[in-house]
């Protein structure tokens, strides 16, 4: 063949499809949101960039022996990356506020309703013939409502790898959008008076409580929902390293080098699922819509649960912190604090909201275990 023709045929201009071009634009959009708007940049920079790489034509990057596909195969297919990240999150989590007020665990439970409502929604879309999801796919979509990145990636990797790209993008995007998504719902469902409720200063928590908590949490998981043990086990291990005080060097490395390295490769691996042929499908649109629904319902469920608890309990809690039950740590807790301050400038809810916030992580991990076991 003519040398120049060969060269010309080897260019991206010649080979690029419209879909790939569109995905590259979407990747650039994610980078823009991450860099300029600070949308979960730690994940969306690698995911967005990986998405661009995955849509470059004429070279194997996200398929075959391509580097991003290798990252995906070694880290996400195996579940290693999300579980290691979860270990790191455990090492970064302070359960103090939760231990000071364990009742807030109920808020973390209620907010998980978003997961299951979304699952129903996905099934409804299928019944009405608009889209076609299997029960496993519906469950993987629902987990977006867990508002927890590694959990969503872990579940999607097990139940619906082909949807992982859309699910991860939805999860992280909506986590970044929490300051826009939650406040209207929180205001709608609460009265001015409720938003004004001041909560009593949290008690200090002893180091011994902090050391015992990850162990009893794991014990309870082992006895009741073993299917959640991989996620919560790694989480508790990270937290025990942090609190035990005898393995500081391991804890430090877990909180820094290890979680950072894993985050980079996890993000690039997720990006490998943003290939046009896999991402530009009607299902993706459905996933984005359902994911938004999941966040809204989760937020509402958390707030309503808080109001319910106020009916039965004497010690009133500010329903705004219920919204933090979806997790989206620590963004959702900050949002609760912010909305609270609007109603009452002397009302600092941040620490109170951290309880339901981390409770939400535990709640969605439990839900993830059930989904993997029964829908897997």
């Amino acid at each position, binding site marked *: 063949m003519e040398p120049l023709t060969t060269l010309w045929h080897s260019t991206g201009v010649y080979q690029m499809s419209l879909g790939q071009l569109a995905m590259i634009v979407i990747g650039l959009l994610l980078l823009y949101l991450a860099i300029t708007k600070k949308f979960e940049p730690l994940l969306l920079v690698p995911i967005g960039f990986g998405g661009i790489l995955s849509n470059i034509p004429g070279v194997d990057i996200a398929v075959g022996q391509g580097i991003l596909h290798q990252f995906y195969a070694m880290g996400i297919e195996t579940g290693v990356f999300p579980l290691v990240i979860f270990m790191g999150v455990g090492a970064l989590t302070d359960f103090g506020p939760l231990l000071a007020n364990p009742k807030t665990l109920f808020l973390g439970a209620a907010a998980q309703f978003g997961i299951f409502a979304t699952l129903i929604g996905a099934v409804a879309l299928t019944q009405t013939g608009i889209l076609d999801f299997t029960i496993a796919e519906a469950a993987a979509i629902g987990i977006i409502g867990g508002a927890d990145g590694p959990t969503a990636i872990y579940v999607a990797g097990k139940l619906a790898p082909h949807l992982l790209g859309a699910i991860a993008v939805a999860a992280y995007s909506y986590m970044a959008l929490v300051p826009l998504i939650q406040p209207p719902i929180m205001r709608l469902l609460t009265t001015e008076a409720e938003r004004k409720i001041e909560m009593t200063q949290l008690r200090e928590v002893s180091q011994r409580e902090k050391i015992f908590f990850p162990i009893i949490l794991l014990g309870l998981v082992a006895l009741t929902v073993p299917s959640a043990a991989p996620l919560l086990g790694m989480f508790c291990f990270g937290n025990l390293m942090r609190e035990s005080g005898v393995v500081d060097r391991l804890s430090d490395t877990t909180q820094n080098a290890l979680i950072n390295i894993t985050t980079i490769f996890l993000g690039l691996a997720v990006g490998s699922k943003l290939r046009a042929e896999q991402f530009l499908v009607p299902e993706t649109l459905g996933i984005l819509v359902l994911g938004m629904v999941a966040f809204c319902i989760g937020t509402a469920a958390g707030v309503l649960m808080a109001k319910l608890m106020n009916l039965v309990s004497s010690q009133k809690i500010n329903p705004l912190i219920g919204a933090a039950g979806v997790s989206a740590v620590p963004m959702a807790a900050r949002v609760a604090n912010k909305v609270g301050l609007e109603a009452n400038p002397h009302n600092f809810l941040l620490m109170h909201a951290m309880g339901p916030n981390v409770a939400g992580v535990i709640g969605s991990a*439990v839900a993830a275990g*059930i989904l993997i076991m029964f829908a897997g």
Partner: protein
Amino acid sequence: MPELVSQALDLVLYGMGSVFIFLTALVGVTMLMSYLIGTDPTTNESGIPSGSMDPKLLAAISAAVKRHREDRQ
């Protein structure tokens, strides 16, 4: 009722059920634990990662930086 729907309803039942049973139990055992081992905060308790040596480091850095700035003035 189509199987998919019944599966979904079962999942919701199992799922929310487990989540609530689990977290309710967790509230119980946590309170019990705190009650049993006592809740008086020890000195080294402070919400700071007992692991990381950052606090001292940061104290040092900030102090040094402060001084450094003063030098330059």
